[in-house]
């Protein structure tokens, strides 16, 4: 095989030189392949190291008091209850506001504006927002709602909603584009107006994919810290008042991880363990939900 290849590549050469050249090329290829396997192994090692660190340092502190006690001063056997509840509330607000907006924008892009100038502009801006630094979205909500009104849980939820929108837009548009045109034509031929064809035919057919997008968006914002720094601020006490500063798991982790108190650092690791495995579980569920489509 290698001799034939070399013969075609250099027919006039001495066969011994050709064989040597072929061997050299094979060796280079093998070397690069080995580097690629090594690169993949190193990447997986990073993930393994993160998961091992979380389990190693987090599992030891995991107990029922984490879920039943509030955050308390160091040495007081505190838990993370208010942080967990605050995170759930703010993530829910973000998803509740961001999802319908995102679905409507995705619908606009897929059904109404396939190649129009406005549609292209919206798609471009949404894609930029998808990767825009989340800390700037926090500053934006701070300027808009917090400056002069004070920190609040609703502001935290709003900043997460801004992050949710472009994620849902992306998946909704992609999924709606996969729906065959014939399905829409069939609906219209039966006399259904366009909006009914979209809502009752296209949404239903694309449900798996859209749900996947929503799950991924929730997974993304559940771990967001930077935007909450300037919006919901954090709260050491129990508070589900949307107008007041609200605690959240990432902010509590941030506060505790940098503290000199050992029990706080331990709680930070427990919180990190909870949030990471929650987020990774959501991701895996979302991927499994998407699988039949492929």
């Amino acid at each position, binding site marked *: 095989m290698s001799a034939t290849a070399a013969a075609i590549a250099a027919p006039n050469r001495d066969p011994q030189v050709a064989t040597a050249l072929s061997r050299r090329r094979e060796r280079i290829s093998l070397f690069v392949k080995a580097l690629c396997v090594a690169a993949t192994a190193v990447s997986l090692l990073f993930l393994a190291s993160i998961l091992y660190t979380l389990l190693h340092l987090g599992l030891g502190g995991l107990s029922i008091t984490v879920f039943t006690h509030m955050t308390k001063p160091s040495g007081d056997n505190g838990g993370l209850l208010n942080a967990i509840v605050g995170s759930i509330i703010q993530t829910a607000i973000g998803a509740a506001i961001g999802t319908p907006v995102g679905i409507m924008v995705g619908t606009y892009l897929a059904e109404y504006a396939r190649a129009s100038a406005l549609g292209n502009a919206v798609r471009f801006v949404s894609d930029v927002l998808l990767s825009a630094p*989340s800390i700037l979205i926090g500053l934006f909500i701070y300027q808009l709602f917090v400056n002069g009104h004070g920190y609040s849980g609703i502001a935290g939820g709003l900043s997460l909603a801004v992050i949710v929108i472009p994620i849902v837009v992306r998946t909704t548009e992609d999924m709606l584009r996969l729906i065959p045109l014939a399905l829409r034509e069939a609906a219209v031929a039966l006399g259904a107006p366009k909006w009914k064809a979209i809502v009752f035919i296209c949404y239903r057919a694309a449900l798996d994919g859209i749900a996947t997008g929503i799950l991924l968006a929730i997974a993304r914002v559940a771990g967001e810290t930077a935007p909450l720094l300037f919006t919901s601020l954090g709260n050491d006490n129990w508070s589900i008042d949307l107008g007041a500063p609200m605690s959240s798991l990432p902010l509590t982790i941030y506060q505790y991880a940098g503290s000199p108190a050992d029990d706080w650092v331990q709680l930070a690791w427990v919180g990190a363990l909870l949030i990471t495995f929650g987020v990774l579980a959501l991701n895996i569920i979302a991927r499994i939900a998407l699988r039949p489509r492929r």
Partner: protein
Amino acid sequence: MSQVASTASVPARRSAISGDAIFAAVAVAAGVFVLVLLGAIIISLFIGGLPSFRAFGLGFLTSTDWDPVQHIYGAAVPIYGTVVTSILALLMAVPLAFGVAFYLTELAPAWLRRPIGTAVELLAAVPSIIYGMWGFFVIAPFMATYIEPNVIDTLDGIPVLQDLFAGPPFGTGLFTAALILAVMVLPFIAATMRDVFMTVPPVYKESAYGVGCTTWEVMRSIVVPYTRTSVVGGIMLGLGRALGETMAVTFVIGNTNRITGNLFGSGNTIASLVALEFGESENGSLKLSSLLALGFILFVISFIVLAISRLLLRPRAVRA
């Protein structure tokens, strides 16, 4: 509208038409809302930073001061830190990502592709703050114990390099921040590269194999030239992510407002400075305005990088 509707002869048809109009209007409004959102973000950051821009003018960009006592603020140090950590992160992440993408498209057995691809993508799902803790508690001590002292000793006496890789071997600093950033942007670059490598028509690769090319030669001469634009787009996407990354960097950057020129020394980035100093800024103060001005600068830089990334990724994606 209602007058036209009342003269229509078939009531059912009338309601259907208005239903369509309402739905279309809501969809268009949602689309326009996204444009307004981006505009509002830019304008709000600019207005917030205006007092600072007024006070310092263009000198804000070049001044290395950050003096809350005398109320003198400059953006040069955090801009320097942001650019240095991001570029360094790409230098580390791009070869790794290329290796992963090459492995996943050409080398891995079919049954391994999905699990390994998913694992690499999960790396992108780990929250930023977790990277920060991992960096601070695992990577920084590792760097301080094994890597940095050895590198400093090895490079001692070599011009340029000995100055570049100098500084206190504490484990925190620009280099460690770049390393964490590299791990964070790796999955984004790798996923984009893998996706665009897959768009290469199999017949091109088969032709190359047919004339006796090795796997690496096919990659270098067929796949990479065919996908070059999109690969650069993927790298720019990674750069856009690295520029604005906040929590992970905040943990390991060391936060000093100084340009030392060496990589093991501490520094700051725009995002880390904003996160760390925001809590100590009074409402309406020049410091808060300067932080918002930094946010505006970061937004402009990220927007340009992400826009380039989109433009590079778009045409090929459509053709594929």
